[in-house]
């Protein structure tokens, strides 16, 4: 069965690219537009990996990340944070709150795809 990815992003332009990339890499993709929607989607069915933007409406990415990590059932979900905040402190905060990786925008689509594949054990 294809591994599933939850893209949490409120910007349609990047959602388009992320969706395309992940589908092309052979993953099943769902999209959430804000923090509340994201947690609802996880609740409905836990994804294998989340591409989680920090600056999203309602509940921010740090909040979502911490909430996911607080639930023992969701420990296995990989979380890659995507953000336009490029400070070292922001990265440290993301990792401290439980993200597996932290990617600063803009990023190379190939690198991101590689990272996702690596985490999900799709070493092609």
């Amino acid at each position: 069965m294809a591994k599933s990815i939850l893209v949490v992003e409120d910007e349609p332009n990047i959602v388009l690219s992320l969706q395309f990339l992940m589908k092309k890499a052979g993953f099943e993709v769902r999209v959430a537009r804000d923090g509340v929607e994201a947690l609802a989607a996880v609740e409905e069915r836990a994804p294998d990996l989340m591409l989680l933007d920090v600056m999203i409406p309602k509940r921010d990415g740090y909040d979502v990340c911490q909430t996911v990590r607080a639930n023992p059932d969701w420990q296995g979900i990989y979380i890659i944070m995507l953000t336009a905040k490029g400070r070292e402190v922001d990265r440290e905060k993301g990792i401290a709150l439980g993200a597996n990786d932290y990617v600063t925008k803009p990023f190379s689509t190939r690198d991101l795809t590689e990272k996702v594949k690596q985490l999900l054990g799709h070493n092609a």
Partner: protein
Amino acid sequence: MGPRLFLIVCFGGLAAAALLAVVVGVWLIAAALPDGGEAVRSMVIVYGGGIACLLVAVIAVLWGYLDHALAAPLAAVVRGIQTVVYANAEHRIEVDENHELGGLPTAVNDLVRKLSQARNTVEEAVATATRSLEQQKNQLAVILQDLSEGVIVCTLSHNILLYNRRALQLLHIGGDIGLDRSLFTFMTRQPILHCLGRLTNRVADGRHADHPEGLMAAFVGATSDGRHILDTRMSLILDPGGTASGYVLTFDDDTDELAALGLRDRLLREATEGLRAPVANLSAAAEILGGNPTMDVDQQGQFKQVILSESRFLANRLERLSAYYRDIITGHWPMSDIYSGNLFNHVSRRLKEQRDVATVMTGLPQWLHGDSYTLVELLNRLILKVGDLTGAASFDLEAVRGDRHVYIDVAWRGDGVPASALSLWLADRLDETLAGLSLREVLERHRTDIWSLDRDGVARLRLPLPHPKRSTHATDVQQLPPRPEFYDFELLARPGDLGELAHRPLRAITYVVFDTETTGLHPEGGDEIVALAGVRIVNGRILTGESFDRVVDPKRTIPRESTRFHGITAGTVKDKPPIQVVLPQFRAFVGDAVLVAHNADFDLKFLRLKEKECGVVFAMPVLDTLLLSAFLHDYTGRHGLDVVAERFGIEVHGRHTALGDALVAAGVFLRMIDVLEARGIRTLDEALVATSALVAARARLADV
């Protein structure tokens, strides 16, 4: 009675007495004459009258002469002296030439001249001094007026002594400040008191001499209405005795700069964060289009649309950024290097004042860079909110040195804080006093963020802060040779029965890590302790706030050679208690704890020699970090405290003070426990066995 009146009375009496004598004589003679001697009687009366007249005349002439030659000149001298004293210092006494006062008028005139000369000299000196003072004051005023910064000089009771025009402008005062008015009429009280407290503490502890900023500290001040933020610096004024007598504030309007800073921050954010997203979208779409030529036309259209819209967006954004850029003035947020111990002290004190919240300072204090007052406010508010949320009533405060930041950790037993709650709290504003800065803005100014973690029932808030700007805090320590290693098998001999302590894990034992400073290396040769300090370790935490630190009067001279090591002189120990007072206090501080010291035998020997005299016994087990180091790192012979601290990555502050060394040894010891555990040494007994084996080996080596 004046001299002239006196003469008149005297001579008048004399004349009257002479007349009386003549009259009585004449009358007696006349009465004794037989009857019929009328002619003789008349003659007697006539001669008597003549004699009387002659006597009176002689007396009158004598009086006249004395009055002229003595009494009148004497009165003139008195009047003259009165004139000199009360009217004209230049007056000279004038006396008729024919007087019988001898050298008196001349002598008095000489005296007057000398007096007047002396007076002139003093007046000239005063005038000169006043002139130069006036000149200096004018120069100072000119310099102050020319300064682009506001300057205010205040007494310790915050009365204004001196200020410049620029200060008026910056404080937005229309008229004059008025000397001797209270500073707090014009500036916000709290940050000033906070900074003054920091500086006076620094002086009281004698830290200003070595402090990189000396008597100065920067802070964020504000006008009393809180509308204008002032980038302020305070310098303490010390009187010749070395105590603070006032302070100088220099400040600059920061509101403009902050506005500029806000603009710059926005610009930077837009230039970095704001551009990242559109660039990401653009490049992703382009990469995908380029990498997938077989994509169907519909999808291709979508990606082309993305490229188009993002490119337009970027072009617009660029225009706006250039517009901002033209308006920009660069500014800065005033910050200074802060010692975490002092920062935590302020936080603890405020918490205790406000509510019954206990704080425990743990770990080794660290230097960091920031604005003390706003950080205290931030920590204070967040801790109160954590208390409200989780019910925690006791917090550990610790500064942890990392590669990129110094972390301030606030730890408590219980649950952590959800990111959502924390982010809500950060919207809180400081008092109006600081232009209503929000906590979030305080973080932004420090270019940092804060988060909460919990692990194993202990939750913490972690606040990364910049490293200190000057690295001198740690490195200004003179490189001094370590004390010679000291082994005395008897001293370290294990106490017979450790009881249940023997098998307790090292981590669960309470320790007191201590250090002494001494007049020399030979306690039996009469060397004495001049300082004794200790710090407690409980449950793997160094309780920095609960330390023992005393200077001891050694009741003997302190060799200069030893002062080089500890900086303690005869002046330092003056009025300090002798060891007979301090050692029992230290014994009480140690309580049931296990003692730890670096090169423990050395310090222990001094303590034990005083046991009987002081009526105390140090029979508890002792661990030596030097021996533990030798055990753990047997590949090297270098185990001085400096070297060992460096090996364990312990930042060294205030080395070669008893407390500084005790803190370093405590930091080293805590790290050692980790390594010891990894080597299979988990209990006190095991640690003592390991080190005493080493002592035996080294003692044998020494014998050979």
